[in-house]
């Protein structure tokens, strides 16, 4: 039932708004609204009950295991939220002068410094508001760098075919054409193909390492060398940082610019789709181009750099300072973990993934890249089950929901047929991992004996499978009041 269906004319949460003193006589009538906005009219209790009930129709980390590859759904400590919501942070207007905002800016400065250390980069900007905006900032910096060198011939960004969709979409937004590099069965980039593709037209290469196939790119030094020799730069997509945090740093691998997804690696909540943060870090040569604002330490006084300080910056990506509240949460998380905690992240995330992979193999599931060590995630291909039982990876995913597990990422990366990309994160206990593997086995049994249970799943959720085709054909994107009869 929609909130609109609870609506009755004249009802409202009266104590929540000032008593009307609507004197709009100074505004020309032709600039005023015609007719009241069609918003629901409900009591506060009705709204509270409605949205509490709706929340129960969601899976979430707090209620379910989310082994969602490439998205790092780890536990979000509650302290990060409650401390970020202290009135001293929430009530700070973004245009408050810096000298009266030293507490906030100190957190931002230290966050920049900790990210530099953990990533092996020279400088960080916290401006980008999500991974995709971090990618945008990164490629824009690469573009600004080449422009500053009067190097106008570089029109192409190289992207492995296993890459996230945001990579090629970002390159396009920055005015580049995209050239895809194939991936070998081993999961490594096809180096020969890369060698052929690299040249004076190459602006840069975007790489995720470990790749979206859940394996570490072993030729990374050779790749960095060949791109750099050709005058291109190396971009690191930070989606899979959880696999290497505290073990190896993108800067040491030769990357010139990276974005981090603070809502993945540093545990800020996904919030049903956002907000995120895509802080960007750079090596020396890209430092002048970092997006603004950046927080600097002037002898113990923190201040935000402006265009006057950084005339070659690519500029601003938001009206103020990006997703500041998200940044505070990431800062708190890093302070809670500290050095030892952060060094353990990749260790436990990788241990959990490799344990699940070994269990999957033991239980007779086919691995996409069986000969390799998993990173923080791994891929099962259900090709065999699909052909024998006529049950797809999507069916498995939907049936998992019935059994109380959020589905892994399905059909990505696009290279592996009928795939499940599984990422347990470091947060989960062994029992959760075993429970998930038991569920997968149960579903395979069902697929063999009663495939209709699987192909028509889910059965226990608020709705069954939804008609996406008619949703796209007969667009219903907003509730409209029935016209009066």
């Amino acid at each position, binding site marked *: 039932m929609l909130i609109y269906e609870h609506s009755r004319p004249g009802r409202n949460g009266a104590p929540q708004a000032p008593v009307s003193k*609507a004197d709009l006589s100074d505004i020309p009538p032709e600039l005023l609204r015609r007719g009241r906005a069609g918003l629901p009219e409900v009591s506060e209790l009705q709204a509270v009950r409605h949205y509490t009930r709706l929340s129960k129709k969601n899976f979430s980390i707090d209620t379910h295991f989310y082994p969602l590859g490439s998205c790092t759904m780890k536990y979000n400590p509650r302290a990060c939220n409650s401390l970020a919501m202290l009135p001293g942070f929430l009530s700070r207007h973004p245009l408050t002068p810096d000298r009266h905002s030293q507490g906030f800016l100190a957190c931002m400065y230290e966050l920049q410094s900790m990210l530099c250390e953990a990533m092996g980069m020279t400088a960080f900007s916290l401006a980008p508001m999500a991974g995709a905006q971090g990618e945008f900032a990164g490629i824009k910096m690469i573009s600004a760098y080449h422009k500053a060198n009067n190097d106008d011939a570089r029109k192409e960004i190289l992207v492995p075919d296993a890459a996230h969709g945001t990579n090629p979409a970002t390159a396009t937004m920055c005015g580049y054409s995209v050239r895809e590099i194939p991936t070998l069965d081993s999961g490594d980039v096809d180096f020969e193909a890369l060698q052929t593709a690299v040249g004076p037209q190459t602006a840069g290469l975007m790489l995720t390492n470990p790749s979206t196939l859940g394996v570490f790119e072993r030729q990374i030094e050779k790749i960095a060398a060949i791109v750099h020799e050709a005058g291109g730069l190396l971009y690191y997509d930070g989606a899979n940082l959880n696999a290497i945090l505290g073990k190896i740093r993108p800067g040491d691998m030769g990357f010139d610019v990276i974005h981090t997804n603070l809502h993945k690696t540093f545990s800020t909540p996904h*919030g049903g789709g956002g907000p995120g943060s895509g802080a960007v870090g750079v090596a020396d040569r890209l430092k002048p181009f970092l997006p603004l604002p950046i927080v600097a330490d002037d002898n113990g006084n923190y201040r935000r750099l402006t265009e006057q300080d950084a005339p070659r910056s690519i500029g601003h990506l938001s009206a103020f300072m990006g997703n500041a509240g998200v940044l505070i949460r990431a800062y708190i998380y890093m302070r809670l973990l500290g050095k030892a905690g952060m060094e353990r992240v990749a260790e436990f995330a990788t241990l959990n993934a490799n344990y699940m992979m070994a269990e999957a193999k033991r239980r007779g599931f086919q691995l996409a890249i069986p000969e390799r060590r998993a990173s923080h995630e791994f891929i099962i291909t259900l090709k065999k089950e699909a052909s024998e039982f006529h049950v797809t990876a999507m069916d498995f995913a939907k049936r998992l929901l019935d059994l109380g597990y959020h589905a892994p990422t399905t059909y990505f990366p696009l290279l592996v047929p009928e795939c499940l990309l599984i990422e347990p994160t470091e947060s989960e206990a062994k029992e959760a991992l075993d429970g998930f593997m038991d569920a997968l086995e149960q579903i395979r049994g069902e697929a063999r004996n009663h495939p209709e249970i699987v192909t028509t799943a889910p059965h226990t959720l608020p709705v*069954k499978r939804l008609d996406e085709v008619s949703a796209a054909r007969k667009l219903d994107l907003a509730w409209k009041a029935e016209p009066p009869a």
Partner: protein
Amino acid sequence: MLETIGIRNTDELFEEIPSHLKVSGLEGIPQGMTEMEVSRLMHQRAAENRQAVCFIGAGAYEHHIPAAVWQLTTRGEYYTAYTPYQAEASQGTLQLTYEFQSMITALTDMDVSNASLYDGASALAEAVLMAVRGNRKSKSRRIIIPRTVHPAYRKTADTIVSGQNIELVEVDYDRASGTVQLDAIKQAAGDDITAVVIQQPSFFGTLEDVDAITDWAHQNNALVISITNPLSIAVLKPPGQWGGNGADIACGDGQPLGAPLSSGGPYYGFLCCSKALVRQMPGRIVGRTTDVDGKEGFVLTLQAREQHIRRSKATSNICTNQGLVVTASTIHMAILGPQGLENTAAACHANTRELVAQLSTIDGVRTAFNGPIFHESVLLLDRPADEVLEALIAQGILGGYDLAADYPELGSAILVCATELRTEEDMMAYRTELQAILAVETRHKETA
């Protein structure tokens, strides 16, 4: 677990990584803290931000937010949920987003909305890109952006669209009214213009002639991109009602509808458009449909526009949006309802008028522009704005936003705003302090 994997220790998990590249430890990271210790630290840091009575708006407004809004929003089921790709396990987020789309389209009087962009400034950038894709009658890729549009929005749009061979044409404002004149737009437009951006109320709080500009743009095959404060359109004419046919694209920042100031974010950008442009829309969109039993349900739809399907040919690279803030905003709008939003907007307007009336009785303070304002106004001071604002903050008053950097031609000018949260006493205190500061400085000047 090690045994199952067939290894002796966790180091073996990383054996594929070249050993000379590995780090032995993160030396520059401080040691971890307990929750108690971190709590102490953060309380201290929060206290180091000076608390002051806020008279700054300039794109971020301090409003009352019902207690229920963030209590509900931070329920784990919303706070820790993922993007609703698995629709059956995400009906809460999906239905809520559909309700958001319903409310924001009702407020803007537009046909469709997406599920949010990052903030108002980046939403403007996406609106510009969308207009360039959507206006097939225009070849010029030239967009008119008056200087009455928020300076930070103009900067952000420039950063984001500049790689795509698009020209943002700045048009100056009329010094007397603080609005952009249609004649100035016509002059800048030349033969072919792709779209005209109008912010209402303008960055100065002045009111643009939106009907005339919209109609002129449409007669000249240009699209109209509106930027509005979504609270203001509870009483002001919404974009869908501008001119004869309404704006084509409506964007802005959703912050006034339930997001705390929070140093500038997270807020959310809203983006609405006419039906004709829906396939040019960036970002996620939720649609209502049915399940196999005919029961109502909600899904992400028109995904073929998006990066995870269309890759380099997508309408935008956006993936993560501002879902949680949209959750808060939807609950906020539901609790306030149309009457509550109307009363709030009217109270902000009344307070700002009251403040401006009070302050402009002081010697050395006058309003910058003639003509109507909404919710925000520019005041001219006969002393340097930065010094006056600094003296005010020492008295616990954030007196306004200094316009010197973006509008040096105005001289010493500040942008002030008093939302519904400001009381008579707050405004009297501001008047008293400002008067005292200006008087002291006048005396200093006389003795010097």
